[in-house]
């Protein structure tokens, strides 16, 4: 009894050991998110009290789609949000709404999947009998989809596919996957903002939570989206995930935490405090025990399944967040890196990630004119704020919430060149023009621009 009482008084007295709080400029904040499991860092930072520890009182508000979310950030209805990596970049260079949006924090790696409807899956299986098994060999390329696309084209129709936003990771991943099997997803241009010039399939925008319903209704035959909307399709029996973004590009950057440049300039300490809380949330999410099992994910799924957050059933969220991924009811695979929130220096805002998105925007014509290599580097520097990140991370090291080993080791903010793509292509963030020109399908630029 006595020890219990002591415990309680200790709980009441609260630890005085916390380091100095930052004198934040704004302590009541509203953050937006889309109902996807990768909003986890924001939700966890709130529910585990990491925002509170920084003296921030944060309200977390669900947004109905990416366009509304971005508009709300720009108009100041919300202070910051869970964003597609492409959104701050596109806003800054003026694709869609023009506004200076910046990011000090990458929220996660991987986490998307491409799902096709049952009937398309059956046709793919009859095109490639290898696929007709309870556990087909992965990764599945779009080669088995090609005959279907060709048949439809011969009948004057185009296969309809869904993605979540014109500058979303999903758009580029879906295009990458299709183009790797020589299916042309279409170019954007000044006059064609739907991106359908020369297209053999038609991509259209649907908000993530409506994907399964749209697929079921037959408006689209497949989609690329984040979780839990692929697992939801499996659980409801309306579609089959064929490939995950991890298979397309191992450890690809996914969402970022975005605020307007104005907010960042007016509230520099608040932004550092926010980044600190988010880094801690990322670390908490990726905490493992000695055997490498993710220890906090069950609790995270429980929190995310609350109706004011992601709100899907716990069982569905758990399917992709606890180290496995369900492709079919008979096909559950280990995918420990399906969602990465801290490992692989995930949370650092890498310039090279920004450049990759820029190269894809150029490849598909969203950036309408050829730009020199130096422009790619400068634009990435405008949007990504590694200085804010490092300031936050170093403070966390001082406070003992992070170890020195957790800090990313980089001189210039670029990841080393990688060949972790499904088509074996190599990407070096310092050579954007060469990278753009390396694709079979895509706009080609003058090689001379690489030196400028």
């Amino acid at each position, binding site marked *: 009894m006595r020890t219990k009482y002591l415990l309680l008084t200790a*709980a*009441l007295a609260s630890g005085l050991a916390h380091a*100095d709080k930052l004198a934040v400029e704004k302590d009541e904040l509203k953050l937006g998110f889309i109902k996807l499991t990768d909003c986890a860092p924001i939700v966890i930072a*709130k529910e585990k009290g990491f925002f509170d520890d920084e003296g921030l009182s944060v309200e977390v508000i669900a947004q*109905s789609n990416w366009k509304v979310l971005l508009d709300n950030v720009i108009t100041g209805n919300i202070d910051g949000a869970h964003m597609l990596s492409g959104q701050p970049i596109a806003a800054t260079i003026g694709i869609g709404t023009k506004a200076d949006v910046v990011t000090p924090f990458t929220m996660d790696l991987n986490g998307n999947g491409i799902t096709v409807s*049952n009937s398309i899956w059956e046709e793919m299986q009859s095109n490639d009998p290898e696929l007709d098994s309870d556990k087909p060999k992965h990764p599945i390329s779009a080669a088995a989809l090609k005959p279907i696309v060709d048949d439809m084209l011969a009948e004057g129709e185009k296969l309809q596919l869904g993605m979540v936003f014109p500058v979303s990771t999903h758009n580029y991943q879906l295009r990458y996957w299709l183009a790797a099997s020589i299916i042309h997803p279409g170019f954007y241009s000044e006059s064609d903002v739907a991106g359908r010039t020369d297209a053999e399939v038609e991509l259209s925008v649907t908000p993530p939570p409506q994907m399964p319903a749209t697929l079921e209704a037959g408006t689209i035959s497949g989609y690329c989206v984040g979780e839990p909307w692929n697992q939801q399709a499996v659980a409801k029996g309306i579609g089959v995930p064929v490939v995950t973004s991890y298979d397309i590009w191992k450890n690809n950057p996914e969402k970022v935490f975005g605020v307007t440049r104005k907010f960042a300039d007016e509230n520099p300490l608040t932004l550092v405090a926010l980044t600190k809380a988010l880094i801690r949330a990322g670390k908490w999410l990726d905490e493992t025990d000695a055997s490498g099992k993710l220890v906090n994910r069950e609790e995270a799924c429980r929190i995310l399944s609350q*109706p*004011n957050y992601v*709100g899907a059933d*716990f069982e569905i969220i758990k399917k992709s967040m606890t180290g496995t991924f369900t492709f079919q009811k008979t096909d559950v695979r280990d995918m420990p890196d399906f969602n990465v929130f801290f490992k692989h220096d995930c949370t650092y805002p890498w310039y090279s990630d920004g450049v990759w998105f820029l190269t894809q925007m150029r490849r598909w014509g969203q950036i309408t004119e050829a730009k020199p290599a130096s422009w790619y580097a400068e634009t990435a520097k405008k949007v990504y704020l590694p200085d804010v990140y490092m300031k936050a991370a170093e403070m966390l090291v001082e406070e003992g919430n992070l170890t020195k080993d957790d800090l990313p080791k980089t001189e210039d903010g670029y990841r080393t060149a990688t060949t972790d793509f499904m088509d074996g292509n190599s990407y070096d963030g310092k050579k954007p023009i060469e990278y753009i020109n390396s694709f079979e399908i895509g706009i080609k630029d003058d090689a001379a621009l690489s030196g400028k």
Partner: protein
Amino acid sequence: MKYKILKAIDISGLNFLSPVVRLAYRENPRKQLREIGRFIIVPIVAFLVFLWLWSELAPHHRTKAGEVPTPSVVWEASKGIWLFHKRETAKADAYLMSSADRLKELHATTARLSELDALEAKANQKITEVKTTSKEKFDAIVAPSKLAYDQKREQFRAANTAREAALKVEAGKLPTLGADARLAYLDKIRQNEIRTEAGKEELKLLKAKYTEAQTKTFPEVKRAQDAVTSLAEERQFLSKYMEMLGKDSRESKSAESSARLSEAREKFLTATDGDLFRLGSAVVKTEGLLATTEGSQYAKPWTLPKQIVRSLICVFTGFLVASAIAIPIGIFCGLSPTFMAAMTPFIALFKPVSPLVWLPIIMIIVGGFMPEPENHWLVKALDHVPVLKEYKVDPMFISSALTVALCSLWATLVNTALGVASIDKDHLNVARVLRLGFASRLFKIVIPTALPLIFAGLRISLAVGWMVLVAAEILSTSQGIGKFVNDMYTNGSSESFAQMFVVVFIVGIIGMFLDRIMIVFQRLVSFDSGAAAI
């Protein structure tokens, strides 16, 4: 007494109660009993029949989003919504509690948490058992269909390869043969295609059976799962609640800040060397932190009860704006046929426009007026209004309210115009004889005579506004019932379907009450009670 009650019933439009009152006063009991049967018993029976039909039919319609919820499932869902509200309120309260209360609550919570250990262990054991048994059943169901499909597929593939091989052998002989033989061979290829297609069809049927078998679920698993989920959610809540009571409570945080303040002050006052400016600013900074901590609140998420209140505020804001525009214009329309003629094209043109068209337009316009919503004078001013500040008036709210206004003002406008235009000419002549001025003619004769029709219009307007509001809130994601529906729809959880049914009833019941209120007003201003409907 009896007539007073009857009059009250009549005014409130609750006419179905009057036979009960008359019966209590023993007035023609036979007739009253018949009326009670017709106006009270019949509706209740009809509703019960509806509930019975619903609970019988719902389970037969399966959708991919789950089964259509039965009344009992909907009832459970409404309890779930309420529980979520209660828990969030508890957290917000815990944040502000005094230390004595917190200690008491902490004891109770610790006790409940230790109870949970045993309960959870039991529930987990139960679900493992149920899962093993249901897995066996599941395998027993799936295995035969899988076997059948696999066998058929092997047969189909073998037959296919055999036929193709045979055809290829035959093709080897073709070069020496003439056109007839070649054409005959073409027929064989066609035959082969037809047989392959037929095989595929057969295979498809078996595959469908196999897939169908895989979707088999077991209610006992669902029940065990639900039990585990509800316990796990309680634990989740309680551990957060503990934190709110303990280290995260406002008191603890303030204590921490004031400890830090006295430390900083101590340092500043006693320091002999060192940078006194820096130490001084640290004191001022900590003072600021302490002040914000003491005024802070728990950032509570929106829950349905609060959203309902906000929706009501929003609909009345829109309704007031609509009335303020529609009644004056309506009066002028009624007084002057020329003015009416000028207004007719606008009424005819804008009345049929859907709220879903108005809303985006209004949102853009309002957004233009409020480039920085948080610093806008209107938002700032409303932040000081006692009740409104809790419901955070923002551009979304204003847009939704204006949409409601734009869609609902027509009924009032047209009715007012009609009421004013149909004033007895004799009354106006009397006014002329008495040489009444415009103002007294307006307030003594025109408005009083037109009031019953104005209120009839207002009643329709409010009903239209309430219907429009939910749609507007869904589209604008303004906090309210519409946002709740949208969130539940996008959640896509197993509860969502039932939660939306809950909203149907809430919206219906509130709409009914709003209508009753307007009926009361309408009766109060009517000279003859016959004008009002049910």
